[in-house]
């Protein structure tokens, strides 16, 4: 079953056709990678999915409901979580507090004026956040200032925060960009582990072919704002059109 159906999306910025009639289906419980050279429209597509951009035409259905015209926080509450290219966490808060915030969002919705009871009394939230930190192997860092962590740890925390919301669809925007090889491999392992342990669909935008071929079950190749081809990793590797448009120079 398709959890995400993108139909005939067009988006224009002035003279530039950023997205040109994009169609994309993501099957539930798969890892779907979207690849393409710079300027292919990957980020624009992602921003459409999370509600940051509104396309000129077309429709985006998530689990049978339209996401278009909804604010990012509403789309998140529908079950789509996003991991950013540079980790977006709450740098001024402690790691544990970082993890508690999505737990509150999951429990209380987009707004709840919970101004009197102390946090220390929110046992369910703390338990959940602690549990998630253990899952992410970060329990020992719970009192650290989030901004003081390494980039790899920030990434790990961000993924953990997204997972603690139990999203149906996890969107990752170049999760290993700018990472050292060791950190990249750790992230790949983490994502593999997540895939094994949870019922979750992952859509990943990635530049690094190593990451893509380690994880993806389906791959869509985007070029100049339009999907070139969509297939399994094995077929993509050998696809002449893809080689020509994209892999030619940067093949693994």
């Amino acid at each position, binding site marked *: 079953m398709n959890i995400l159906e993108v139909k005939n999306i067009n988006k224009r910025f002035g003279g530039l056709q950023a997205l040109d009639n994009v169609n994309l289906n993501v099957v539930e419980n798969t890892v779907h990678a979207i690849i393409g050279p710079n300027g292919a429209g990957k980020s624009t597509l992602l921003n459409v999915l*999370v509600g940051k951009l509104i396309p000129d035409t077309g429709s985006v259905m998530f689990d049978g409901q339209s996401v278009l015209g909804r*604010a*990012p*926080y*509403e789309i*998140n*509450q529908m079950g789509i*979580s*996003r991991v*950013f290219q540079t980790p*977006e*966490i*709450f*740098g*001024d*808060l*402690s790691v544990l*507090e970082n993890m*508690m*915030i*999505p737990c*509150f*969002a*999951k429990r*209380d*919705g*987009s*707004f*709840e*004026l*919970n*101004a*009197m*009871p*102390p*946090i*220390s*009394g*929110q046992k369910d*939230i703390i338990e959940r956040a602690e549990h998630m930190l253990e899952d992410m192997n970060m329990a020992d860092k719970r*009192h*650290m*200032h989030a901004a003081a962590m390494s980039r790899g740890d920030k990434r790990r925390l961000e993924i953990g*925060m997204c997972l603690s*919301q139990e999203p149906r669809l996890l969107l990752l925007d170049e999760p290993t960009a700018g990472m050292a090889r060791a950190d990249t491999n750790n992230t790949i392992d983490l994502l593999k582990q997540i895939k094994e342990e949870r019922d979750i669909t992952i859509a990943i935008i990635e530049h690094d072919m190593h990451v893509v071929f380690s994880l993806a079950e389906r791959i869509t190749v985007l070029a100049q704002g339009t999907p070139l081809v969509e297939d399994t990793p094995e077929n993509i590797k050998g696809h002449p059109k893809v080689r020509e448009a994209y892999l030619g120079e940067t093949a693994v």
Partner: protein
Amino acid sequence: MFNMEKRDKKLLIIIAVLALLAPFALNPFPTDSAMAQFNAGYPDLMQRFVIFGIFAIGFNILFGLTGYLSFGHAAFLGVGSYSAVWMFKLLSMNVVPAIFLSVIVAGLFSLVVGYISLRRSGIYFSILTLALAEMSFRLAYSVLTPITNGETGLQVYTNDPQILMGPDSPTVTHLFGLEMRSSYTLDIAGWSFDFAVGYYLSAIIMVAAFYLSIRIFRSPFGLMLRAVKSNQQRMNYTGLNTRPYALAAFVISGMYAGLAGGLLASMDPLAGAERMQWTASGEVVLMTILGGAGTLIGPIVGAGFIKYFENIFSKINNSVLHEWFGFLPDGLENGVIWVLEHFVGSGWHLTLGLLFMLIVTFLPGGLVEGGQRIAKRLRRKGADDDDAPGNKTPAE
């Protein structure tokens, strides 16, 4: 009790005890000693300490937690004062309905202002609040004269309706018969201590307001507000709508400002538009930053500090300076006095401005951070093993 952590409970108790004993603590010098001019234990000044403390505590809930810098909060204080005086004019001189209404009206007004200005953030938000407050200030001076009595200021007249006034109700502000300005003076061997009803009412309300702010800081709501300051983008992509959170903080701080305004009017039943001017908003920003924005105790420290030194510095004049530096050779004495006279008397604002620049530049965490740094250094000197790393929770 109170559903608080130990540390916070200790803080609350310290503040409560200080507020209770302020008439003693602020009058350490005998009445006729030379140092008596540094005493601050008279009701009028102590009331200002706690009332501006309330104002700053409220402002800190907005600025300290969410980082939204409002330059218009004096408008809420002004509206609170006007509402209170109107209660005196219409009902009676009892302060309870006055304070109650001032909080409500300021809350409603801040809801409107906040709803409009929070549609933008950053510098745009600051300018919107500035514009809205300046607009209210101008309106209060001009068209709204029937409500505000324009430049004269709103006050109570004998021909006002005052429908709840009995034949022998007090004609000054009171709390169910207890007059605000009545006080008891205790003389002990050269020292003189004043215990005024008005001060204690304000102090009790300040302690309650402080308690409330601790609860807000430690609540999930407080955590959300800090998250708003830290990363709005992450908030939005975590399914949280930032605007109602910021608006709630804005309205709460507006109500605190209204409460402060209502109390000011309760101590002295008069309200003027100059209370709403944007420089008055600047003053509460100063207090909060000076004490330490985002810390619990900072705003109270800042308000006390500014109001105390405003009072002391304004009183020092040339002859006092000459008295102090009389021991120096004449030329040097004149030089020293020439420099110092810029900063005292009416030069107090210059001192304030300089202090403010120094604090923002070198000590962005305010006096509280300064105190913590000193304490940490002392502790490190005392015992090295005492230094438990990784155990830092933001917002003391």
